[in-house]
């Protein structure tokens, strides 16, 4: 039986095993390779997507569980020509290095920006514990987030 999903506003179907991790369907079938399967253990956050507006690691999410949900991947966060607010500040602050963690970072921080407009530096640090970065040492990402919250 085919699964029916809504991804970035598009209705799509998949014939994959319902137990398949969502990240594999996104990447292998839909060629949305923004979500990165880095650890496949739910620790690193590089495969984070929004499911009905809430961030979740797509590596630990069986596809069948998100049938009928609104799934937003990093590819769906920017409009055609414009980066969203957090993407724009991360670019302006020159925060990006290898870039593998950033799709997940952007998803988590996009959510933080809408739900925690009053977040402090410590709040941001706490919110990022599910998004690991091996390159940047985090601080510039946190600075950028504060900037995004202030503008």
């Amino acid at each position: 039986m085919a699964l029916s999903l809504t991804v970035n506003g598009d209705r799509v179907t998949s014939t994959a095993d319902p137990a398949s991790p969502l990240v594999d369907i996104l990447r292998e079938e839909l060629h949305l390779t923004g979500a990165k399967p880095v650890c496949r253990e739910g620790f690193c956050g590089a495969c984070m997507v929004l499911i009905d507006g809430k961030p979740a690691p797509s590596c630990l999410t069986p596809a069948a569980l998100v049938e009928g949900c609104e799934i937003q991947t990093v590819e769906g966060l920017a409009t055609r020509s414009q980066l969203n607010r957090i993407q724009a500040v991360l670019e302006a602050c020159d925060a990006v290095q290898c870039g593998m963690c950033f799709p997940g970072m952007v998803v988590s921080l996009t959510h933080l920006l809408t739900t925690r407009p009053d977040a402090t530096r410590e709040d941001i640090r706490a919110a990022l514990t599910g998004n690991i970065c091996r390159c940047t040492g985090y601080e510039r990402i946190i600075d950028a987030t504060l900037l995004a919250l202030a503008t």
Partner: protein
Amino acid sequence: MSDVSATMDLRRRDAADKLRGRTRYTIDRYLPGMLHAAVLRASVPSGRIARLDTSRAARMPGVRAIVTAADAPGMMGIGIADHPLFARDVIRYDGEPLAAIAAVTLAQAQAALAAVDLEIEPLPAALTMADALAPDAPLVHPHWRNYEVLLEGGAREGNVAWEATVVRGDVDAAFARPDVEIVESSFRVGRQNHVAFEPRAVVASYEDGRFHIETSTQVPWGIRNATARLLGVPASQVRVTVPPVGGGFGLKFDLAIEPFAALLARASGRPVRLVNSREEEMLTCLFRENADIRIRSAVTRQGDIIGREAVVLMDCGAYGGEQIFLTTMTAHTLGGNYRLGAVRLVSRAIYTNTTPNGAFRCCNGVYNTFALERHTDEIAARIGMDPLLFRRRNVLGDKDLGATGQVFEADVLGPMLDRMDTLRDSATRPSHRADGRLYGRATTVGTWFVFVGPSAATVNMNADGTATLVTSGVEIGSGSMMQSLPQIVASTLGIPPENVIVRAADTDAAGYDVGVGGGRTTVSLGAASLSAAQEVRTKLLKVASEMIEAAPEDLVMRQGRIEIAGAPGSGRTVAEVATRAQAKNGPVSGTGAFTGTGVPAMPGCVAGHFIDAIDIPVFAVHDCEVAVDPETGHVEVLNYRVVQDVGRALNPRAIHGQIQGGVVQGLGYALHEEVTIGSNGRVCQSGFETYRVPLALDVVPVEISLYEGAPSMGPLGTKGAGEVPILNVGAAVACAVANATGKRIQELPLTPPRVLELLLDRKRDLTLPHIAETWSDNLVRPHKAPQGNA
């Protein structure tokens, strides 16, 4: 020869795509008809292959090709060719490849792996360096004498894969002097996993009788040459291209999985993708090596280091790999930093039945700096001198000798220590925390180097006024390819850096290059790019001088124009001149090449070294404040400061990013990144749950001061800046924790259980019985004995 400053605040051009999830790394590559591959790996650390039958696996659904040792005849290595692609008859580590299978889906390939008929007779294993150096140790390579020697000069014997020595002056006499204190210290460090977020990944195809390998690597030419060697084909039959790389840190400076995919592509006639699982990455990562170190110094009560000797054992795992080369580095990491009298060092790469180790950011330097700086504090304590005063008195200055007799130029570390004093003293925050925790601080110094070596560059001037830079450089995340290189070319040609197109690495299109690592991108590729751009500049100025009717030496290139100096707005645009030049003489291009000059060591000082001295030393001073919880042993870093020698900073903001990231990676090494190997020979940390890398809550913002002006042969005075930030983090944290607790720190990482053991005096002093008391008893071959492999 530039009219525009190369120092810019240029933002990365690859950021927007990376932030949108559009960037296609190697793991994101899909080709039509692509097969998926998986590798069968051994599950014993040592054994004999009694049977390996793939006929049943070959009949499994979806399977299109299977390759084994018979398909890869060559051996690879650095110094000695000791490493086959697949285990042949003998298994030397848990995880060693035995066969590779390509199938229509990854699940089919994995199912086929399970259908390989395999019988292995276990053999005794040497899992630690102490095991491997025991008199009756099983030999990891019983036939080590038969291997092809690629570089003469290192001593070898049994499980000693390589031995490099330095002897300068009369150390025995120094130690025998009546006016010296003799201080002896022992240290042990474990492995560190790079945890590059993109695992090692490759997509290979076989087209027109040649291999095309798209891979996540730092060394396209290294992959080309090593793959050809293993496959037994001419290097010209292998083309390597490199998509954006999702993190390297040295992990991707060695060949890993490319030949499996290449062989399977040739066998199946279809493109083949192979991506390491995270577990494979964790278990078979070319870790920063574990090491055992003993240092002994003879120091006067006034604080002069009269003599020093050291033994450094580096675990290379089952194959020599990069450790063979890294034995060279001990001379410069343990023998750098301080002015020394007589000195003798031996650095030994030891075979064990464990997964091979490799290079990791500031390879060899991180643990030797930890050992040297802890040893320095123990010396200062012994002679009753303030440790900072001792450092100030002894750091290398102008005309001082390094361990190999290399003469260092200019006073760099001294003024950097002064700079750190200013940085530290200007801090207004209260240092001490009155919450019952133990407070400690330390300032440490470190010396590393820029790994120079050959690089090539071509600049093609386009008629529209843009320039295309062609190199074998790879963007691994540091930004060198996105920032420093275009800045160098743009400033030379007076065009905006956005108008410099940087071509991704392709060994068919660009000249030879050693690879992106060792802090060499801005230096070596930068110098080649500068030289290529200068040739283009000269050609354009000649054509422009005819168009403008002015002498070339009166012309400047700036803001996209070639104009008469002192007459802004005069002349022509670069595009007009390039168009005219192309019509008149053909397309304009320039080529550049670079390599290190090779600084001499003192004659007779070194044996078994790949480089006798370092072309571009890089120095760092780190200062760290910690609070140690006496109840739990948890160490919190309160403040961290870095003064780093960068030669000249082309993009300070980019360098700051590298320093923050490098320090945090070092904090992981210092405090909680621990790799252990079980009695079964398998790495115990198989994923992110068990291997704890720093999280956002673990770190502090690093206060940074870039020290400019130290001599460098790098283009425009640059030095590599991305490698060194991790150099003395372990040292600074360890010294600060020692100061906080009053305990002797001999091992890293300083995990809470380890710190608590120290606090409770339950930790015995570290002993290294496999390091002989008498220095020369640690040698396979006496220093200066006839060379050639023992």
